[in-house]
């Protein structure tokens, strides 16, 4: 009997050894992080989740593109009264406006936390990936981190032009409850550039770069639609955008040229402009937004009336010449013959290519030409002019004479024609720290501190040491 007892006593500690593992319960109705990141598809889902999180209205689904950013850039003639205070850059005088801005901050940082969670896990799980997927997914995630942080910087931080040493936003490289320090503008930019350079290195195997044809049979077509992912060229394009923001013209040109010279993003053909409204072949990076038709209907058609974003006939005429592809394809009329913006309308024609659908462009080929033009302006005005005219050519317009004197005005005009509804115009002005945005009735945006949206109050109350970004 004593033997039995001894056996029992011996067995007890053994039972406990395996206990810790047993205590690690895997939920059924939700997926444990460790469980998700145990397979390659888990990483794909987590990455898709980060992209998805950007597609909603509080972020790129509206406010970061056609909504708040469109209003701030004076892209529209009329919009919802909910933007009344934003229109005059008095963000803090209205709770609706503050809530919208808080949602941008919290939402983008939530995407970053999701993204970092993936990056925290990926290196330990290198073994679960097939093909080049490890490098590509990690490269994309690094690029996404830089992309989102850079947009946060462009939204909340001072512009480089204004003061690169001003304290701006925190840059998170890890997921968790640790609070990252608030960094200066150029520190954030450098971290973003570092992430992008790492990403470019990892994306050397990107099918779009090496020219590998991917079909839907390969890995369920995972690497087929590179333009809705931050692919190699998108990273290069983003580098060009950031270097330009940083006024490093050499690097900006270098990176823009990588994209331009790759010839991977053909200009839209004139006979496609009515079916491919966003000119999808030119997208370096566009969000794949399944709900884009809903967003379009709520933002521009009578469904969202009266809170819709619209341009008057006069403004349209001021922007465009009559042969402009964009003039021809991006504007239409609703049933009441009101002028509406239809760039994001989804074709109901049966055989519309999937590639044309559900796209919200965030980085396009044309911007590379504009970046190159601006980078070349100081050294070679002719080449710079050629860059701008190249874009005009592919928009159904003749070349226009550009010299040092009218360069800035021409660029600004060409830029806003191209990016309407994409939210880039406000950042264009912010980059240059323009005192007053055209059509803003002369509001001095610099003295109003309008370029720097206020950081949410909760950020100050819940993390000691945060300083005012404005």
């Amino acid at each position, binding site marked *: 009997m004593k033997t039995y007892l001894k056996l029992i006593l011996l067995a007890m500690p053994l039972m406990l050894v395996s206990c810790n593992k*047993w205590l690690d319960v895997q939920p059924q109705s*939700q997926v444990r992080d460790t469980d998700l990141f145990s397979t390659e598809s888990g990483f794909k889902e987590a990455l898709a989740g980060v992209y998805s999180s950007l597609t909603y209205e509080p972020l790129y689904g509206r406010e970061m593109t056609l909504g708040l950013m469109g209003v701030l850039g004076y892209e529209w003639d009329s919009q919802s009264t909910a933007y009344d205070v934003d229109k005059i850059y008095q963000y803090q005088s209205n709770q609706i406006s503050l809530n919208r801005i808080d949602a941008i901050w919290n939402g983008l940082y939530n*995407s970053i936390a999701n993204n970092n969670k993936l990056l925290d896990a990926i290196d330990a799980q290198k073994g679960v990936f097939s093909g080049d997927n490890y490098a590509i997914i990690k490269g994309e995630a690094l690029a996404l981190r830089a992309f989102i942080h850079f947009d946060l910087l462009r939204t909340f931080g001072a512009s480089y032009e204004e003061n690169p040493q001003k304290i701006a936003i925190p840059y998170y490289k890890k997921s968790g409850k640790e609070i990252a320090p608030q960094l200066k503008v150029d520190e954030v930019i450098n971290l973003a550039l570092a992430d992008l350079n790492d990403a470019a290195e990892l994306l050397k195997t990107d099918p779009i770069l090496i020219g590998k044809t991917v079909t839907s049979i390969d890995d369920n077509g995972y690497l087929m639609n590179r333009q809705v992912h931050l692919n190699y060229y998108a990273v290069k394009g983003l580098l060009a955008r950031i270097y330009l923001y940083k006024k490093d013209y050499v690097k900006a040109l270098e990176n823009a040229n990588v994209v331009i010279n790759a010839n991977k993003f053909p200009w839209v053909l004139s006979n496609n402009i009515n079916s491919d409204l966003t000119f999808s072949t030119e997208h370096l990076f566009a969000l794949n937004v399944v709900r884009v038709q809903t967003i379009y209907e709520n933002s521009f058609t009578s469904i969202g009336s009266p809170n819709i974003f619209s341009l008057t006939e006069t403004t349209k005429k001021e922007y465009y010449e009559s042969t402009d592809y964009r003039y021809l394809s991006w504007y239409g009329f609703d049933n009441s013959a009101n002028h509406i913006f239809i760039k994001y309308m989804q074709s109901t024609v049966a055989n519309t290519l999937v590639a044309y659908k559900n796209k919200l462009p965030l980085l396009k080929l044309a911007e590379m030409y504009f970046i190159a033009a601006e980078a070349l302006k100081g050294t070679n005005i002719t080449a710079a002019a050629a860059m701008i005219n190249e874009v005009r050519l592919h928009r159904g317009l003749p070349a226009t004479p550009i010299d040092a004197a009218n360069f800035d005005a021409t660029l600004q005009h060409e830029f806003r024609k191209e990016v309407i509804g994409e939210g880039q115009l406000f950042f264009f002005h912010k980059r240059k720290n323009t005192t007053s945005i055209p059509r803003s009735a002369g509001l001095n945006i610099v003295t109003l501190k309008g370029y720097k949206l206020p950081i949410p109050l909760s950020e100050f109350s819940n993390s000691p040491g945060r300083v005012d970004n404005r």
Partner: protein
Amino acid sequence: MNSKLNLNLKTTFKGMKKYARILLLVNVWRTLNSNNCAYYFTVVLMSFAIQSVNAQSVNQTKIDVDFKNIPLKQALDQVQKKTTFNLIFSEEMVAAYKVSLTAKGISVDQVLKSLLTKTDLYHVINGNKIIISKKAKQTISSTSIPMTNVGGANSTVKRIRGKVLTPNDEPLVGVNIKSPEIAEAGFQTNANGEYSLTLPEQAKSLVFTFIGYTTKEVKIASSTEINVTLEREDKNLESVVVTGLFTRKAESFTGAASTFTQEQLRSVGNQNIIQSLKMLDPSFIQIENIAAGSDPNMLPDLQIRGGNSLPGLKGEYTGNPNMPLFILDGFETNLQKIYDLDMNRVASVTILKDAAAKAIYGSRAANGVVVVETKRPEMGKLRLSYTGDLNVTTPDLSSYSLTNASEKLQAELDAGRHSSPFNYSDQILNEQYNRIYTDVARGVDTYWLSQPVHTGVGQKHTLSLEGGDQYLRYGADFTYNNISGAMKESGRKTMSGNVFLSYRLNNFLFRNTITVTGNHAFDSPYGSYSAYSRLNPYWAPYEENGQIKKVLGTFTPIGAPTITFFNPLYDATLGTKNFSKYTDITNNFITEWSITKALKVIGRLGYTQKINTREDFYPANHTRYANFAEADFFKRGDYSITDGRDESIKTDITLNYSKMWGKHLFYFNGGWNLYETGTETHGFQAQGFLNDRVDNVNFAKQYLENGRPTGSDAKTRETGLLSALNYSYDERYLADLTFRRQGSSVFGSDNRWGDFWSAGIGWNVHKENFFEAKEWLGQLKLRASTGYTGSQNFNPYQAMATYNYYTDTYYDNIAGAKLMGLANDNLKWQQTQDYNFGVDVQLFTRLNLRIDYYISTTESLLTDLPLPGSVGFSSIKENLGEVRNNGLDAVISYRAFNDAETQSFLNVFVNLGTNKNKLIKISDALNSLNAEREATDRATSTKPFTRYQEGQSTTAIWAVPSKGIDPITGSEIFMKSNGDLTYLWDANDQVAVGESTPKLRGSFGFNAQYKGWGLNCGFSYKLGGQYYNQTLVDRVENVDIAYNIDSRAFRGTWKQAGDEVFFKRIIATPTRTNPSSRFVQDFNELQFTSLNLSYDFRDTKFLKNSGLGRLRTTFFTNDIARIASVKAERGLEFPFARSYSFSLQATF
């Protein structure tokens, strides 16, 4: 099939010898294992039926015998064949004899007497069983010592022999026998319960004592044979503390625990255990639910010794965070099971309150533990018991005081609802008034409160059978409980069957219990009671032809669309369905291995599975769809179904060891346990039921528009090691030590394991020499304990980082995963440190007193720590905050009268409890939560809500101090926090103006018994708390004149300058009255909670002639009357009810 089975069983019974029943049960056991429960029940019930039908008095059974010099065994076998009796004997014992007997129509008793006369055997008839044993003389002689040295040489000696039996006629072994006149010696009964003594002449009486049985004293007189039956002492349960894992002698235990027997539970009510416990123990508190009233389907909200957690926080907890842990027969269970448990099955309930008592449950114990032990079958012949209850429930509407039709119409007129300064409008309003007036004049005055209620009649039947011998014991019971609620067609039906088997083999004991419970809880189709209390009395529910109205009335205010008032009674006729059901199967298996006398190992394995479902259906004609737009016509009607499955498995191994060295006594328990519990649910909603005749979900037109299926799961695992040591020196100095190391999946991965412990000391002062001789001091025990336990009633996955999937979008053909929150690997249980100081006193054997004082501090309260948005999430779960409860529990009982002769007594008892709750520390998170909750609440509710603030109680009433109504303006004057007076209400000026927890609460009453009559009476009281009189706010001051109002409305409202009144000025559109100290009233309450009268037919001729073992009838009434210092409506969604019941208990 049944008849065939019946036949087989009969043959089995008649044909087999002494182990007939055992074999049957073995068979049953096999059946059980094959999971064929229905068959199983049939078998058991049938066996019972045969038994009872054939159970005849031994004298009535006449048989013919014709034995000619045949072996005794053969003769006995034939007797058995001819009768239904079981003859129990050993073959060896009877082998030596041959018998002859010829007789016709003589009784079995006589037959056996004749057969056994010439042998050294005798027989004992024990119900259906006839036991044949060897005569006592021979066996006893060796053990009995003639007391030759007693009483001197001249004394005459007398020899006395006899037998000591249990009420079931089982022999009692080891009964102590003493004669009070002779100090020196004592005797014990032998293995057959027999004794034989030689006593000196002066011995006048014998005293029989045995643990667990009442002591009996018998006069010797001239008899030489004294047979004694000792009654089981139910109270004896109080002398042990059942912790669920092991038992301790109460005498040597230092923890605070109180034990109640079934008898005690029944003395204050027959509804459910919870109902009774709150009367019996002052620290066991049921939070009164004013809204839910006496809804039988609403599980009560319970607390032991105050709340250790902050209720109402966002999603941290699963269910009530202060809910105690429930243990049923050593296995963890939930409140619902205890609520539905048939009280007749309960042997005892123990409430473990302090650390020394509850620390063995470690991280789940902080809220206290309720340990329920069910009855185990007793040895003996097959016994059948039946308990039947007839329950009558009547609604108690006395808290309502609403206007009648003419008063209401007058009130409307006074409020200016029917007049306008503009002629045209005035005319329209007057016409509407006239229409109502006509109705009132022709006598319409509907008492809406009585429309949806009725006198519910429910019944409960419990049938149980038990029996067995020292090897095999069995028990089975079946309960049907149909509770009928005070709202029409509301109720709860529970059917439950339970089978217990135990088998002892050498030093192994195997026990298995399987319980199957089916429950069907249905809500009243009449809907919420509050809908009726609002309806105007001048509306008639029926047309003149008796047809039920759909629309009760309309009203068209000036400049606004017509308002239509619907009849909720109409909805009740439509065949709505609102019910939930569950089926619970529980199997518990226990093995005990007694290695030596002192060392025992117990292994347990328990498995529970519960399948539940909830369905709600509203047909298209329901008035909730009356205002649907035409386009939504086909969306009328809703059906929602939620299914769920709970499963839990638990196993543990416990080692019990006891040892005595001189005066040192040790009890040691060590153990290991493993526990897993999981829940999953899924559900969906459908809409569009095109006609009322169908109420099945498959008639739905479609799924709910934009709806998605729902689902959830929760799984918890834990394991731990336990050791508990109890030490006593000379029964005087006592100590308890408990240690538990426990791991749980609920905690963060860096904090999986927690250590919990307790230490207690005690001193039995009355055992000291200087008190030993003092008759008046029965007991004086001092106790002190401290320890550390945890609570983990929170969402099991919140320490983890989990992902969900986007269901409304996908990205590049992949459904994206979304991180739900940040993991907190450090998250741990809430830790509670308890201190308990107690004293147990018994004086003059009449007065019993038990007082406990406790301080319990809970640290690391689970709350949200706010994070800056840049972290990506707004908060993380953290252990922050501290709350303290201290208080006193006292139980006093006094036996005012006692007469053993007539078994009469009068017992008076008073229970009192106090509890003070204080938030010591809270996190900043709670401050922001205060503001957040306020922002949402202020817009919708006039109710005060609890703000969490350091130094305040978690149950404080918060409101702005009011200086009353300004006689000049009729507006309320508030006091700002800086002392300024203002007309403006500001949430930031709120202070704690009252405390909803009473200063003192408890119960008192008496239990009396005279011969067979018993009378129990109980009152409960609450003193010194405050109450926010919401009725005055909503029904008097801010009345919505469109609906019925309290009869006090418009009395004492400000009308003109100079009025010094309680209520503010009422204007046509009532303003909201925000929480104001004006409505905080002192709350004292006395409730006549229970009264029951019983009669036990014991010792009556009727009982003896009827062949019944026991018969008792009881009449119960509960919640009879209530006096309170605050006049406010109670029972808002479901009325409170009084209950009356008649109960019959019989044992065959």
